[in-house]
C-alpha cells in the first residue's frame, strides 16, 4: 500500500539529493559551459536503471540518461560493484554526443543494488579535429574526439588512472576538462552519501518500492494530462539549410498524434542520413520531443521514466534523426533545434491557443582557438542558440526572451575579453527582423567579433541562412541569418557552417535570425506598431509595407486615416 504522503516525502528527498549534486557541481567545476551555461543534469535511477528522479534537466538530457546507463549495463552485466563509477560518452552505446560524458555511481545495501546516481556534464573539449567538438563538417565519429565506451572511471573506490590520463592527453584544455571530471565524480560521491542516509531512514526495500511508485504516479499524472487534451493529428515540416558538407537542404518532418492518453511523434518522411555531424541520434531526438511535449503538461510533473511511457517516438533508422554508425554527431545541437521547432510547429497547429510561432535564432555555435601573445593556447566556445521568442498566442514574442526548451545563458562580453584575445564590437537587436504578425516575433540579433591575437581558427555551426524561422496563421517568418568577415576593409560573405583561419584585426559579423510572427500582421494593433517604430525596433518603411501602418515621419504619430486606407488596399 502506497502512502501518498510518504511518496511526496521521498520524492522531495530524491529531488534534494539531485539538487545537492547540482550545487556541488556548480561549486567545484571549472568550465564556463558548466558554470554559466549550466549544461549538465543530475538524476537518480533505480537499481535496474529506471529513471526515478531528475533534478535540473536540460531538454536534451530528458530522455538521454537511461540509455547511457543501459549501455553500461549491457556491457558490464553483473560485473558492477560498490565503489565503481561508470562512464560513457559513446553515442553508439546509449550516449548522445562525445562532449557529454555520462557517469553513474551505484549504491548498494546488504549486497543489493538500490539505485544509481547519474550525472551528465558537457565537457569543453575531448579532442578531435576541431576544438570544442562541434564542427559541422565532420564525416565520421572518429574525427570528433575521444570515444569512451562504457567504462569504469572508478573501480572499487579507486580512480582508473589510465582512463583519466587518456582523457587528459586527448583534450586541448586538460585543466578545465579534468577539473570538471573531478567535480562530476565528487558530486556523485556526495550524492551517494546522501542516498545512504535515505536508505538508513526508509530502508532499501521501501525506497525501492517508492521509487517504483513515483514512476507509476508520474505516468498516471501524464496520462491524465494527455487525456484532457483533445484528440488530434497534425503534421509539420522544417528544414536545415544544409548538412554542413554541401548536401541538403534537410527535411525534418513529424506527424503528431494525440489519442486518448497517448502521444505518438512519427518522424517518417524526414530526410535520410547525410554527411556532416548535425544528425540527432534516436535518444536525442526522443529527448527533445519529450521536452517539446512537456510544455503541454503541468509544470510540476516529475522527470522520470513514467513521463516517457505514454509517449512514442518513431524515428526511422538511417534517417537524419536516427543515423547509423559511424555518423558524426558533434553538431547535433543544430539538428536538435530543428527537432524542437518541428514538434513545436505541430503543437502550434494542434493547440493554437497555447503555442507561439517559431523562436528566432540560428543555433549559432562558435569556437575560436589559437595562441595568445604569450604563446598560451586559448579556446573560446560560445553559443547563441536562440535570439528570442515567436509571436503569439496572445502577446508579442519577447525580444531576447529566454527559450522554454533551452536555458543556455549568453556569455559576458567582459569575461570573454578578459580571458581571450577577442573583442566583441557589437551585441544587440537587428531592427525589422522580427517576423511580422498580429503578434510580432522577437527581433534577430547581431554579434560582431574582432581578433586581437595574430592568428586563430574559427569554426561556426549555424543555420537559417536559407530557411527562416516560420510564422504561423498568417504571421510571416523572421529575418534570415547572414554573416561575413571584414579584412582590410574588404567584406567576405560567410556560409552558415565553416572552419577557417582568421587574422589579427579581422572582424566577423554574425546576424542571427529573427522569430516568426503569429496571425495576420494587418490585424496588429496599429498603436503597437507605432510603439515599435518609436522604440526603433522597426523602421517606418517596415511599418508601412509589412503592417500597413502609416506614421508621420517627423513626429512618429500614428496616421489613423492613412493606416485605415493602407490596410484596406
Amino acid at each position, binding site marked *: 500500500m502506497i502512502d501518498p504522503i510518504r511518496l511526496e516525502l521521498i520524492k522531495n528527498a530524491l529531488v534534494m539529493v539531485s539538487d545537492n549534486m547540482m550545487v556541488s557541481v556548480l561549486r567545484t567545476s571549472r568550465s564556463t559551459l558548466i*558554470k554559466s551555461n549550466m549544461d549538465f543534469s543530475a538524476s537518480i535511477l533505480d537499481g535496474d536503471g529506471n529513471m526515478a528522479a531528475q533534478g535540473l534537466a536540460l531538454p536534451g538530457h530528458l530522455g538521454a540518461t537511461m540509455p547511457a546507463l543501459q549501455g553500461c549495463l549491457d556491457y558490464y552485466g553483473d560485473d558492477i560493484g560498490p565503489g565503481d563509477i561508470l562512464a560513457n560518452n559513446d553515442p553508439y552505446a546509449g550516449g548522445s554526443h562525445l562532449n557529454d560524458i555520462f557517469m553513474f555511481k551505484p549504491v548498494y545495501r546488504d549486497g543489493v543494488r538500490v539505485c544509481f546516481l547519474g550525472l551528465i556534464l558537457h565537457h569543453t573539449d575531448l579532442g578531435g579535429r576541431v576544438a570544442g567538438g562541434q564542427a559541422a563538417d565532420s564525416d565520421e565519429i572518429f574525427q570528433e574526439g575521444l570515444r569512451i565506451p562504457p567504462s569504469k572511471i572508478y573501480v572499487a573506490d579507486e580512480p582508473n588512472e589510465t582512463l583519466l590520463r587518456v582523457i587528459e592527453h586527448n583534450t586541448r584544455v586538460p585543466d578545465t576538462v579534468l577539473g570538471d571530471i573531478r567535480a562530476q565524480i565528487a558530486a556523485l560521491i556526495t550524492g551517494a552519501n546522501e542516498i545512504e542516509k535515505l536508505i538508513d531512514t526508509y530502508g532499501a526495500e521501501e525506497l525501492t518500492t517508492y521509487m517504483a511508485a513515483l514512476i507509476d504516479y508520474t505516468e498516471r499524472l501524464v496520462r491524465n494530462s494527455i487525456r484532457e487534451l483533445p484528440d488530434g493529428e497534425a503534421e509539420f515540416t522544417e528544414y536545415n539549410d544544409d548538412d554542413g558538407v554541401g548536401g541538403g537542404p534537410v527535411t525534418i518532418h513529424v506527424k503528431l498524434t494525440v489519442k486518448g492518453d497517448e502521444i505518438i511523434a512519427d518522424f517518417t518522411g524526414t530526410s535520410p542520413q547525410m554527411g556532416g555531424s548535425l544528425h540527432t541520434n534516436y535518444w536525442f531526438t526522443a529527448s527533445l520531443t519529450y521536452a517539446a511535449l512537456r510544455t503541454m503538461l503541468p509544470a510540476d510533473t516529475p522527470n522520470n521514466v513514467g513521463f516517457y511511457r505514454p509517449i512514442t517516438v518513431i524515428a526511422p533508422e538511417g534517417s537524419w534523426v536516427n543515423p547509423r554508425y559511424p555518423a558524426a554527431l558533434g553538431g547535433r545541437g543544430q539538428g536538435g533545434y530543428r527537432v524542437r521547432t518541428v514538434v513545436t510547429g505541430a503543437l502550434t497547429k494542434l493547440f493554437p491557443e497555447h503555442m507561439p510561432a517559431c523562436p528566432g535564432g540560428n543555433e549559432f555555435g562558435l569556437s575560436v582557438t589559437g595562441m595568445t601573445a604569450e604563446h598560451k593556447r586559448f579556446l573560446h566556445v560560445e553559443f547563441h542558440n536562440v535570439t528570442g521568442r515567436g509571436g503569439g498566442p496572445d502577446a508579442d514574442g519577447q525580444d531576447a526572451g529566454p527559450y522554454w526548451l533551452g536555458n543556455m545563458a549568453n556569455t559576458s562580453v567582459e569575461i570573454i575579453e578578459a580571458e581571450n584575445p577577442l573583442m566583441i564590437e557589437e551585441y544587440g537587436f537587428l531592427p525589422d527582423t522580427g517576423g511580422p504578425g498580429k503578434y510580432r516575433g522577437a527581433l534577430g540579433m547581431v554579434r560582431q567579433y574582432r581578433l586581437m591575437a595574430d592568428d586563430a581558427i574559427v569554426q561556426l555551426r549555424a543555420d537559417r541562412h536559407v530557411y527562416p524561422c516560420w510564422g504561423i496563421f498568417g504571421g510571416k517568418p523572421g529575418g534570415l541569418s547572414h554573416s561575413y568577415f571584414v579584412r582590410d576593409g574588404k567584406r567576405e560573405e560567410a556560409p552558415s557552417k565553416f572552419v577557417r583561419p582568421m587574422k589579427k584585426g579581422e572582424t566577423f559579423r554574425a546576424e542571427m535570425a529573427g522569430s516568426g510572427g503569429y496571425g495576420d500582421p494587418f490585424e496588429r494593433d496599429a498603436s503597437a506598431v507605432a510603439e515599435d517604430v518609436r522604440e526603433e525596433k522597426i523602421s517606418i518603411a517596415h511599418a508601412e509595407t509589412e503592417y500597413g501602418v502609416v506614421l508621420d515621419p517627423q513626429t512618429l504619430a500614428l496616421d489613423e486615416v492613412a493606416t485605415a486606407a493602407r490596410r484596406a488596399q
Partner: protein
Amino acid sequence: MSGYRLGVDIGGTFTDIVLLSADGALYNKKILSTPDDYSRAIEDGVRALLDATGIRAGDIHEVAHGTTVATNAIIERKGVRVALITTEGFRDILEIARFRAPRLYDVSFRKPEALVERRLRFTVPERITAAGEVDLPLDEDAVARVAERCAASDVSAVAVCFINAYVDGQHEEAAAAILRDKLPGIPVTVSSELVPQIQEYERTSTAVVNAYIRPVIERYAERLETRLAEIGITAPVNIMQSNGGVLPAKIAARKPIFVIESGPAAGVVGAQRLGAKLGIDDCIVFDMGGTTAKATIIADGTFAMAPETEVGGDAALGHRMTQGGGYIVQAPTIDIAEVGAGGGSIAWIDSGGGIQVGPRSAGADPGPVCYGQGGQDATVTDANLLLGYLNPSALVGGELSLDRGGAERTIAALGEAIGQTTTDTAYGIHLIANARMMRALSSVSSERGLDPAHFPLMAFGGNGGVHVCNLAEALGATTVLVPPAAGLFSALGLLFADTEHQCIRAYYQPFDALDLDACNATFLALRDEADHLVAADGYAPDARRLACSAELKYVGQNTALALPVPDLPLTSDRLAALAESFAVAHEATFGYRSDQEQVQFVSLKAVGQGLSDTPRLPDRITLSLDALPTASTRSAYYGPDHGWLDTPVLPRTALGGDPQAGPLIVEEYDCTTVVRPGWQASLDSWNNIVVERMHQDSELQK
C-alpha cells in the same frame, strides 16, 4: 548609555517594531504594513508602543531600520524615468540580459521588462580594452548630444555604463562630468563608481536599478525622519544593508542598491551577533514566515556572501541557482537560500493523486482557512492548528482567534481524496512542508561542503519555532535555539549590527603577471576610502576598524573565494602566503587544490566598521510587554510513533535553567515553539529557548 534603541523592520504583511534598553528590557509591537506609505505604519506603531510603555520619545537615541521599500519600488515599477548611456554597439545589453528563465517548459514565461525603454538608451563612441587600454577615445561631442536628448526626453535620472569600465572608469567619469554639467539637478549613476565589477549586463542592470530607485528611497528616508521627528524622535536613522552592516539613512539612500535585502539581512546578522555572544561560531539560521522559509549557514562566525542578488526573482536555493526571473543587482548580499514554503503554503491534490504543499500561498489575505477571512485552501498553518501546535483561541497574543472547525473540514476533505485520516493528512502536510524547507537547509550546507548534522539551528520567524524541532530531527542536528522575540527577530537583529562601509574594486589580475606597486596603490586607496567613509559618520580613529580582503580564484574558474589580506602593502612573500591560504581554503571548500594552476585576483575589498561605544547586545533580554498566556495543557500529535500526547503549554518565562522534557509547547505573543518528545527545553542566560535532543537514540523520523 541609558535610554532606548528602536528597531523597525518592514515586511510585506507586518511591520515589526522593537524597543530595547541598554539592560535588555525589550518591548515589541507587530502591526499591518501600509504599502501606500510604509512610513505611516511605522509612525502609528511607534506611537502605540510609546503610549503602551510610557517610554519617552526623547529617550530613544538610535533608530535602525530594515525595509523592503527598495525592492517594492522595483517590483511595482515605481521608480523614475531613467536614461541609460552605453558604449556604441551595446545599446541593448540591458534588455538582452542573460537569456535565463527560472524554469523550463513554461511557454508563458516572460522575463521582467527592461527598466529603461530602448528610446532612452543612448550610445556613444568609446572603447577601453580588457587590459585597460584605450582602443577608441571617448567622443565627448557625442556625449554632449546625448545630454541634449536626455534633457529633451524629460528624464529624472541617468545611468552610465561602458564596456570594461570595471578595469578603467576614465571614460565613464569624463562622460558623467559632461552630463552633470549639461543636466544640472539630474543625478548621474556611474557604474564604475557604484560597483566596479566585471560583467557588463549585471553592472548595467545595477547602475540602472540604482538610478531608477534612488529618488524614491531618498524621499522615503526624508519622510521617515520627518515622521519620527514629529513624534519627538530625533536620533539618526540607520538603514540595514544587504551585507549586514548599517549606514545612516541619507547615505544609504544615495546608493539604494545596497539595501535591497535589508530585512532578511537583519535576521541573519542578529543571529550571527547573538551566536558570537553565546560562543556559537557555527549554526544554521532558519527563518520561516508566511510564504517562504529561508536558511543561511554561519561557519567560523561568518555568513556566506553572494556577489549579487536578483530582485523580484523566484525563491532560489542560494545565489548560484538564481535564473533570470528578476532584476540583477551586483551588491554584496548575505547568501540566503529560500524555498516557497511557509505557514500560508497551500496543500493540494494533483491529478495523479499526489499531495503537494506550496509553492502557492494563501498569504495574509485571505490567509489560512482557520483565519476565517474567506480562505478556502488548506494551509500549513491549518495543519499545525489541527495537530495542536497552535493555540486555537489565540494568535498574535489573542488578537486573532482561529476557526478550528473550518481547518478540520478542509483537511478532512483532502484526506478523503488520498485515503488518509484527517490527523495523518495534517501531519503529512506538516512533514511535506518540512521536506521542502529541508531543501533550503541542505543546500546552504552542501554549498559550503558541510554536514548540517553538526550545526545547531537558530530558528525564528512567526513559524520557525513550530517546525524547527522536527527539522532538526530530520537533519540529525541535536541543538535548537529560539531567541527571544523570535516572531520579530529581524527587527531586534537590526540593533545588533555595526556601521559598515564596504569598498570593492574589481581587480582581474593573475598573480604571475602582477604589478605589485600598482596593486598596492589600488588596495591602499581602497582602504583609505573605507576609513574616510567611517570617519565621515563621526567615528574617532580608535572606534574605526578596517579589514581588507580579496576574492581569488584559479584562472578559468568562475567561483571565487574571499580571503582576508591581513597586511598591506603586499610583498612577494605576502602574495605567496595569500596564494597558499587560497589553496588551503579551496581544498577545504571544494575538496582539492591545484598547485599547477594560476591564482588570480578577482576583486579587492576594504571594510570599514564604526564601533559603538556601548555594547550592541545586552547581557540578556527580558520581554517586558508579553501578553503572557497562563500555563495549560492540550493534546498534540507527534507522528505515528508517539501519537497524540497531552502537552504542557507554557510561556517562555515558565522555563528555567533546568531542562524540562518534551513534549512541550512554548507559547508567546509572536511565535510558538514546539518541543517534541525526546527533546528537552530550557532557558539560557540570554533567555533563548534551548531545545536539545535528550538521548542519541537511533530512532529516525518516519
